[in-house]
């Protein structure tokens, strides 16, 4: 077959009236008999679930018939099949109510990515060489099963390690059963922007190990400490919907929104009042606000209950946090604190949010506890317009942190023989100082379920590519974003394009191959059976009124995209009375001597690439960053004054050096960043992550110092100090021309 014919016939599929494939049929690809009966040109909408961030938004997938090149029984041909054309929010879903963020919409490109791994692969070259050979699923699963069988026999402790993204629902249940079977296995939940600090704080303050659910639509006053809640933090779509309502959704009423942070984030850009605050002192400001409310008797101290008493000095009215005492330390003027405290107290319901970098300092947990106490004092816990906690159907405990796993392996305290990696890229998402790469080298057998050759998958011995989310069964139990109880479920929106298998299906298959206990704890043949079983249980608990039997309930859930309670079911803060001990607020610690490393280093979640897991999507690479307008690259943000001091021109290549590494990236002057802070988006700097992301920019995670948030295992990713030097000219692609709306020429005159 000639290539030109090839180009001709594989032209756009399904265009309703395009002319293609004229000429002699002998010169064309064969066409397979369609597996679905679809009418071309007519769209159907199928529910699905967004898996790209922990928010768990509901999707509607627009499916239309198209013609895809597929391999069937070793033959290449064209198949008319239902193809996902667009992702939109599921209007029925309580979290995102028909709306969807840019990342969620770009999830479509995961399915159609040209560099997707199309079938199981086994490593042939040396580790990291990227040389693999194709193999069948049968031999791939047999190979992994035999590795696991060996572990099972040896019974050695900690011989199986699992690194996954934080999972929920039946996928989590299957994985947990798997991990539990191998005694003392090492399950790691890895997310660079994890919420474990917030969950730990909420557990201590309110008895719920849950992230916050906000009800901004009914809030009247919002104070946020570093939380990018309209962009990437927590459940951004749900929060943005609430934000729209709080702004102009209630005629005559418009809430005030105050943001404390070091760099104007995309969220800070929408604030009515943006107040810079010294890094790590956000909790102190929260306590300063509480101090004013207590001192001026705006709220009774006892009103905060357990959450307040948890903090040292609460009963005495937080004497150390008088506004004038903390003004120097926090950089916030005393009168500002007094004013904000009075305003917040006067505008019920008021809510305080702490997250993002504010929770990623060494004192992040205390900061989160301070914000919780402030919320409790304001009386906004469990109230409309405040912070809510939906009843979680089943609570799960977390495993160990990646840092601990790596150090155990590196110090030979653990001897992991087999590592399974799912939906995580530990090599990219960990500071170089953790030694993850070295630890992985010590593990004899690594199997990855990744769809892409990322940094970690490059090291894998076996690759068992997962379906894309749109090709898979999905289930979810999102813990925040809505006060309703939610169990999402979605059948595949389209048939798989490649020779891939769903990760839970592979685990179930392995379980059956291994037999024994494991097979009996995992009785299901496939993932959808497991989901159906959980919905049968849910029917007994919740669904008897809305469906006549479990089958109807199950069918309804599939059609709708899940089951959710019709009304908010927020649960009250559970611990009452005095806590057993008190927490002493403390100052943040930073890695690096301020004299050698004069700047605070502030990595932040990219609105488009998130934590780097979306850097492989061309839509995300080419969408301009909301604030910098950068496309296809990374950058370092510097205050104009700092730039002048360093004689740095926008676009200069700068070297950022931390006590634990250095990187180079082009600099960008940002008027909205504190002079002593250098900010950099997380997302770029992949060595291997498809043609669109590989070798692009630098990864700020790699140079972070390995400090943890005290009281948790989380990385204190905002606690590193750096120095900066200009090393040359860099390349920056900006979409936007000018920083200011009025020409600078006019201003200078």
């Amino acid at each position, binding site marked *: 077959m000639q290539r030109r014919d090839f180009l001709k016939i*594989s032209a756009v*599929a399904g*265009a309703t009236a395009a002319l293609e494939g004229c000429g002699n049929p002998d010169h064309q690809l064969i066409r397979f008999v369609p597996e679905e009966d679809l009418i071309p040109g007519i769209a159907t909408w199928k529910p699905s679930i967004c898996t790209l961030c922990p928010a768990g938004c509901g999707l509607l997938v627009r499916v239309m018939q198209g013609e895809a090149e597929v391999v069937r029984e070793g033959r290449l041909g064209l198949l008319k099949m239902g193809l*996902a*054309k*667009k992702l*939109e929010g599921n209007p029925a879903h309580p979290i995102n109510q028909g*709306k*969807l*963020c*840019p990342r969620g*919409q770009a999830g*479509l490109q995961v399915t*159609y990515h040209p560099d997707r791994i199309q079938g199981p692969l086994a490593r042939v070259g040396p580790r990291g060489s990227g040389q693999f050979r194709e193999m069948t699923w049968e031999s791939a699963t047999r190979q992994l099963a035999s590795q696991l069988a060996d572990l099972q026999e040896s019974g050695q402790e900690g011989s199986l390690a699992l690194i996954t993204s934080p999972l929920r629902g039946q996928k989590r249940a299957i994985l947990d059963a798997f991990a539990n079977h191998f005694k003392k296995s090492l399950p790691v939940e890895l997310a660079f922007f994890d919420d474990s600090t917030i969950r730990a704080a909420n557990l201590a303050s309110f008895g719920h190990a849950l992230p916050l659910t906000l009800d901004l639509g009914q809030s009247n006053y919002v104070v946020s400490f570093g939380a990018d809640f*309209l962009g990437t933090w927590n459940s*951004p*779509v749900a929060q*943005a*919907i609430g*934000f*729209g309502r709080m*702004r*102009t959704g209630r005629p*005559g*009423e*418009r*809430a*005030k929104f105050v943001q404390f942070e070091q760099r*104007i984030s*995309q*969220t800070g*850009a*929408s604030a009515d009042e943006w107040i810079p605050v010294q890094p790590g002192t956000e909790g102190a400001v929260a306590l300063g606000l509480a101090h004013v409310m207590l001192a001026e008797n705006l709220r009774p101290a006892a009103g905060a209950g357990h959450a307040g008493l948890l903090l040292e000095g609460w009963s005495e009215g937080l004497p150390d946090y008088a506004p004038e005492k903390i003004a120097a330390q926090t950089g916030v003027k005393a009168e500002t604190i007094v004013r904000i405290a009075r305003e917040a107290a006067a505008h019920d319901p008021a809510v305080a949010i702490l997250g993002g970098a504010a929770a990623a300092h060494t004192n992040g947990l205390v900061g989160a506890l301070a914000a919780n106490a402030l919320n409790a004092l304001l009386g906004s816990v469990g109230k409309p317009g405040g912070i809510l906690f939906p009843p979680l159907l089943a609570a799960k405990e977390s495993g160990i942190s990646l840092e601990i796993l790596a150090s155990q392996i590196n110090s030979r305290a653990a001897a992991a023989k087999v590592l399974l990696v799912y939906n995580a890229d530990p090599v990219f998402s960990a500071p170089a100082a953790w030694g993850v790469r070295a630890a992985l080298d010590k593990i004899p057998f690594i199997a990855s379920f990744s769809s892409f050759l990322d940094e970690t998958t490059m090291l894998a011995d076996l690759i068992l590519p997962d379906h894309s989310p749109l090709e898979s069964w999905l289930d979810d139990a999102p813990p925040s974003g809505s006060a309703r109880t939610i169990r999402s479920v979605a059948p595949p929106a389209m048939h798989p394009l490649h020779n891939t298998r769903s990760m839970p299906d592979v685990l179930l298959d392995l379980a059956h191959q291994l037999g024994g206990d494991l097979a009996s704890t995992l009785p299901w043949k496939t993932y959808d059976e497991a989901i159906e079983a959980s919905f049968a249980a849910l029917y007994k608990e919740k669904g008897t009124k809305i469906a006549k039997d479990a089958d109807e309930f199950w069918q309804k859930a599939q059609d709708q995209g899940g089951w959710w309670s019709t009304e908010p079911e927020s649960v009250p803060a559970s611990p009452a009375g005095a806590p057993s001990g008190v927490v002493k607020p403390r100052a943040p610690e930073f890695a690096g001597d301020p004299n050698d490393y004069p700047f605070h280093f502030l990595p932040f979640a990219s*609105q*488009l690439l998130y934590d780097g897991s979306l850097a492989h999507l*061309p*839509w*995300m*690479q*080419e*969408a*301009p960053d*909301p604030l910098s*307008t950068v*496309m*296809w*690259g990374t950058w370092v943000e510097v205050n*104009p004054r700092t730039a002048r001091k360093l004689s740095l021109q926008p676009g200069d290549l700068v070297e950022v050096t931390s006590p634990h590494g250095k990187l180079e990236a082009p600099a960008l002057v940002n*008027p*909205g960043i504190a*002079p002593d802070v250098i900010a950099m988006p997380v997302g770029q700097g992949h060595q291997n992550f498809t*043609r669109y992301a590989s070798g*692009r920019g630098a990864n700020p995670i790699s140079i972070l110092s390995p400090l943890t948030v005290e009281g948790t295992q989380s990385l204190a990713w905002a606690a590193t100090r750096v120095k900066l030097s200009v090393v040359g000219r860099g*390349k920056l*692609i900006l*979409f*936007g021309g000018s*920083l*200011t*709306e009025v020409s600078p020429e006019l201003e200078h005159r």
Partner: protein
Amino acid sequence: MAHRWGMVIDLDRCTGCEACVVACRAENNIATVGEEQAGLSRAKHWIRVERYYEGEFPDVKVKFQPVLCQQCDAAPCETVCPTFASYHTGEGLNGQIYNRCIGTRYCANACPYEVRFFNFFNPVWDKPLHLQLNPDVSVRTVGVMEKCTFCVQRIKAGEIQAEAEKRELKDGEIRPACVQSCPPEAMVFGDLNDAESRASRLANSRRRTKLLAELGTRPKVTYLQRDSWHGDENA
């Protein structure tokens, strides 16, 4: 009475999240041009979120302003096109007829909003990314202009649906991809000839402004300027 489609963008709600930008790209088969071409300022964004800083640290403010084709009633792009590729449709849209475009790019120069984008090369999709292409929208070829159409394919589909069901279109039934996706619901689309439509009512808000109104292009996109907190008035 014919429809007259218009849009209202509430800047008090806009969070600059770029959901509209990606929604538009997905809906309208807008190709990514790649790093090199993007570096030559040839990236195509039918809708963009303009970001403007104001003031110096620490008193800095940021303004987001989504800009898309304003579908002007007195559109400078239309009169200058020598072939009627750019013209005023019966429903008041600034139509762009790709097959009639010969690529003078005069329309893009005349447009004060810079919302017109040119196909400097034939667009390319690495396979199988092309399987995502929306069959309801043309894939443009080299040498033609393209721009926001207010998702005319959705408007047409809605009108055909209403005609098939022998009924009038409902307010809010048709939503362009950007409006549909916008999480804070900053964008509202509707018929400006229907005084009762949500868009018509919002377009009369006290916060209404038109982008570059002084140029007399009479845009059909209305911006509601950011409000300020009224303090104790609401308390």
